[in-house]
């Protein structure tokens, strides 16, 4: 059985290593500041005992005031998982750091979020639309998107 690590415990460890980086934490997930996300991701991937070597999925959710990007991390080695969230604000050009340099599995998923939700990922090697065509206006998965 995959053990879902407690967000609070991981948050306490992160707070020690990167003070002020965790915004809030709950039993099943934790929310980190987007500025420190790449450092935290690298820490989660490389620290012995955590070893989050497998990025299961990335999703973005539009809450009008902000976009929340959700990372489902798994460790194949220890069979445990963690849900990390981060937020980005503004609707014109919300930006987050890309994690492709750590997990290449993020490549198409970040492009998909860029395409459908309109969030840019800094440091992505090939950030362009993936399912819609170049020149398409708007980002359909945003809640305020209207075709008519």
């Amino acid at each position, binding site marked *: 059985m995959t053990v879902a690590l407690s967000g609070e415990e991981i948050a306490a460890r992160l707070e020690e290593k990167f003070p002020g980086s965790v915004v809030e934490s709950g039993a099943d997930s934790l929310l980190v500041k987007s500025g420190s996300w790449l450092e935290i991701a690298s820490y989660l991937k490389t620290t012995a005992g955590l070893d989050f070597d497998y990025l299961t999925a990335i999703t973005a959710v*539009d809450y009008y005031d902000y976009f929340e990007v959700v990372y489902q991390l798994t460790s194949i080695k220890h*069979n445990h998982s963690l849900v990390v969230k981060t937020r980005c604000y503004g609707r014109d050009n919300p930006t987050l750091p890309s994690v492709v340099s750590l997990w290449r599995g993020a490549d198409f998923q970040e492009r998909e979020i860029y395409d459908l939700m309109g969030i840019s990922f800094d440091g992505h090697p090939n950030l362009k639309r993936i399912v819609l065509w170049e020149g398409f206006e708007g980002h359909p998965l945003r809640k305020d998107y209207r075709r008519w």
Partner: protein
Amino acid sequence: MVIKTEPFVVNIGPAHPSTHGVFRMRTTLDGEVIVDMEPVFGYLHRGIEKLAEERTYTGCIPLTDRLDYLASMSNNLAYCLAVEKLAGIPVPERAEYIRVIMAELQRIASHLIAVGSFLNDCGAFMTPILYMIREREKILDLFEMVCGQRLTYNYMRVGGVSQDIPDEFLPALDKFLKEMPGWIDEYDRLLKENEILLARSKGVGILPRELAVNTSASGPVFRASGVKWDIRRADPYSIYDRFEFDIPTGSVGDCYDRYRVRIEEMQQSLRILKQAMEQLPKGEVRSDVPHLIRPPVGEAYGHIEAPKGELGFYLVSDNSIAPYRFHVRAPTLINLTALRDMMVGWKVADLIIIFGSIDICMGEVDR
């Protein structure tokens, strides 16, 4: 004398018999050798994630049928599990068993198409795939018995399945379970040690273990690279912890390993089916669920080991009758991430085989 040639770009697809749907590979070739490859897709994008936000939770089930249309039962199951997790809905024992039976039959049906079309791409033109379609038809007959459909089943419901299995189902399933091992032997006699198949697929399109983990590959592609990772075992959902089965893995991660893993998985699915059929209890097939489900505010990620890999649904609820966010973790989309690495350095003829060995379904890649 050596003739110098410039690399040139060739578009393979979008409409090409070997691309299993509308998929384009923008390849850069140096003579016959692949220097670079970029997958281009989206031709079948129907905006399923957006459509789902305007439907009720039950109304989304037919949409999931249309993701990976060669494995609709598995899609139904993954989605229903996610909603049940979100809303805390129990599932009756009998329904759990019926779901496992359907999911494993679906795995066999999907792998038959995967292996058949892979062999077709290898040049064993039409013979193996027709054998395999013959067997798949029997599975479709079983599905037709329970829900009247042969492709998009819409059979599972939140909290169970839509209706109980008919009386003639179990004898028919029993007959299938007795016949299928012989058919798998028949494929092996035809192909397992076939010179041409070995020459074309052994050592071709290798996906090393580290790369497979780093690119989030899943399913048979992942296991062929030597990772013993199957969600039915790693994170058992439904009642999979009650069955005995092995997880076949490959050693090298080449096309041949991927083909073998699928054949062996079919045999393991037959084992699970046999156990599930013997243990099938009597009782209700659906718990008492309101027509309009209003899960509490929150989110849930439900995942299963679908035939093609880890299929996950991420749902966010705002306590209304429709999902606030409906995201599909599509296994075949993510399995394509490593496609370029598997192809570079091989020849055009191998490209077709490597692509065929991944087993993609465009309905799921594009959504």
